């Protein structure tokens, strides 16, 4: 992202500048509004929401909605809160991110340092997998998971996310390793280092930045997935996004908006934290996924 910090040669008049600042602030307001609304209304009693003003600060502060969203609210049939689903998501995300990142690193290494005829076509085939509408694989995937006894399990979801995630991780590592001097690899080879030795000793130690990008991208994507979770999981493995949707859409009883908002923040918290801590890398991941190379 070094490119983002270059100064431009454009000079702007001061009236125009005031206008620009106003517009920029207006947009900041637009982007922050939903977060503000969720935050403020998650610490209000329900009566203040239904009877009053969504933008107002709470008159009575309460963390009850948070407690309910986490451990008591009715999600689907059971009144378990979102807690078990949060852990389902963690149990799914961690192995899926780990496996897809390792595979992506190995693939990227092969595709740049051990090139062979037709490797670009193979990479293209893997990359296209990232962009397919997943509706096209839902039916056979449901069959396949059933055949392997993985239907409704966390491991089934891990498999699905690895399969459809390696295209991106391979892309990241391939673009990154392409800039890594191949002479170093050849020199190590002449010194007798093998395929895996070169990978462990030479490639991986210098892969820090791209690994952060890959891990963040995969973590965000898999945590935020809804379609696969809704299609292939049951109550023992449903991820957070599916549970949140069930919580919000449940038609029985009073709509507890404050609990919904607290739940939404809980579902957003992990990826939001990652973004706050490592936003720079998050943006880089986004850009690498769009502007190849």
């Amino acid at each position, binding site marked *: 992202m070094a490119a983002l910090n270059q100064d431009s040669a454009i000079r702007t008049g001061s009236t125009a500048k005031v206008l620009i600042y106003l517009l920029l602030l207006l947009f900041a307001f637009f982007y922050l509004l939903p977060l503000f609304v969720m935050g403020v209304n998650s610490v209000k009693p329900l009566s203040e929401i239904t009877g009053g003003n969504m933008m107002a600060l709470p008159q009575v502060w309460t963390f009850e909605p948070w407690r309910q969203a986490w451990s008591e609210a009715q999600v689907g049939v059971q009144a378990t809160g979102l807690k078990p689903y949060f852990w389902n998501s963690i149990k799914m995300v961690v192995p899926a991110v780990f496996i897809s990142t390792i595979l992506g690193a190995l693939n990227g290494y092969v595709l740049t340092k051990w090139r062979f005829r037709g490797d670009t076509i193979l990479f293209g085939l893997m990359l296209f997998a990232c962009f397919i*509408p997943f509706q096209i694989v*839902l039916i056979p995937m449901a069959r396949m998971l059933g055949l392997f006894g993985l239907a409704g399990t966390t491991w089934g979801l891990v498999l699905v996310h690895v399969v459809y995630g390696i295209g991106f991780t391979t892309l990241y590592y391939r673009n990154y390793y392409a800039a890594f001097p191949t002479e170093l690899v050849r020199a190590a080879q002449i010194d007798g280092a093998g395929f895996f030795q070169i990978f462990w000793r030479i490639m991986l130690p210098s892969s820090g930045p791209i690994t952060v990008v890959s891990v963040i991208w995969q973590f965000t994507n898999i945590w935020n997935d809804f379609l696969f979770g809704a299609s292939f999981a049951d109550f023992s493995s449903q991820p957070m996004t599916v549970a949140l949707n069930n919580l919000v859409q449940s038609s029985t009883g009073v709509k507890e908006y404050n609990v919904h908002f607290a739940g939404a923040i809980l579902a957003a918290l992990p990826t939001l934290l990652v973004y706050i801590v490592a936003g720079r890398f998050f943006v880089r991941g986004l850009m690498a996924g769009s502007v190849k190379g």
Partner: protein
Amino acid sequence: MAMPVEGDFRTRLQVWLPKLVLSPSLAMALVFVYGFILFTFYLSFSDSRILPSFGWVGLENYLKLFRLRHWETAVTNMGVFALLYMVICTAVGLALAIFFDQKIRGEGVLRPIYLYPMALSFIVTGTAWKWMLDPGIGIENTMHALGWESFAFDWIKNREYAIYTVVLAAVWQTSGFVMAMFLAGLRGIDNEILKAAQIDGASNWNLYWRIIIPQLRPAFLSAFVILAHLAIKTYDLVIALTGGGPGRATELPATFMYSYTFTRNQMGIGAASATIMLMTIAAIMVPYLYSELRDRR
């Protein structure tokens, strides 16, 4: 060629190892992507209902699909949604990027604010906007509470306008990202050319219109490809925001496919709709990926 057998094996292993390491990923792609695509493609010509079945019915599913009002609604909505979403995201993204390019103070604070929605799940975005747009407790109610009694904003409950609320939430989520793409493009432009044009007396408007924006072609292309593919894949946002309603007012092909396949037991028709979605995305992605990967060589 009398090489020791063991050494020969090691050398051969080293030759094959890279391909061996690549093969699991490749096998997964072949089975889970291309094999599955063929499977679904076949099902779209079959008499599948609740479960996959392999009786051949030719084009019947496609003919039925094109006669369905439900599908027509989904496709029309897709057209409206995709067009507005892509145009507005590009316009907002480009405008914000150009604003940031005017030596703005506080860019470091503002940029993350514009981009954080991209880190959220569409389900979270949908939930937040669902209640904000709800006339009973959201913006309309707030305006009434503030004293503006005649204020009405009930698009999300209105069959005519509900699709625009999906556009609004989707633009909220991705326009910051488009801004970052254009900003990277803008900052990559050679300042010397701009300075030369300034000396020749070019106005800012001319600089942007004649020199800068034409140079952003690659960023426009990437933005188009990313937004088009996101638009066609839009599913979770609609589920969380409107559930496809009111009525069927915000159904999209993705929600259509899901309900026909898994709740209406019309798997053949569902498979046909999925095939059409894939074709649409492939028509955009295949040429793009082809040109991107070929340029590299």
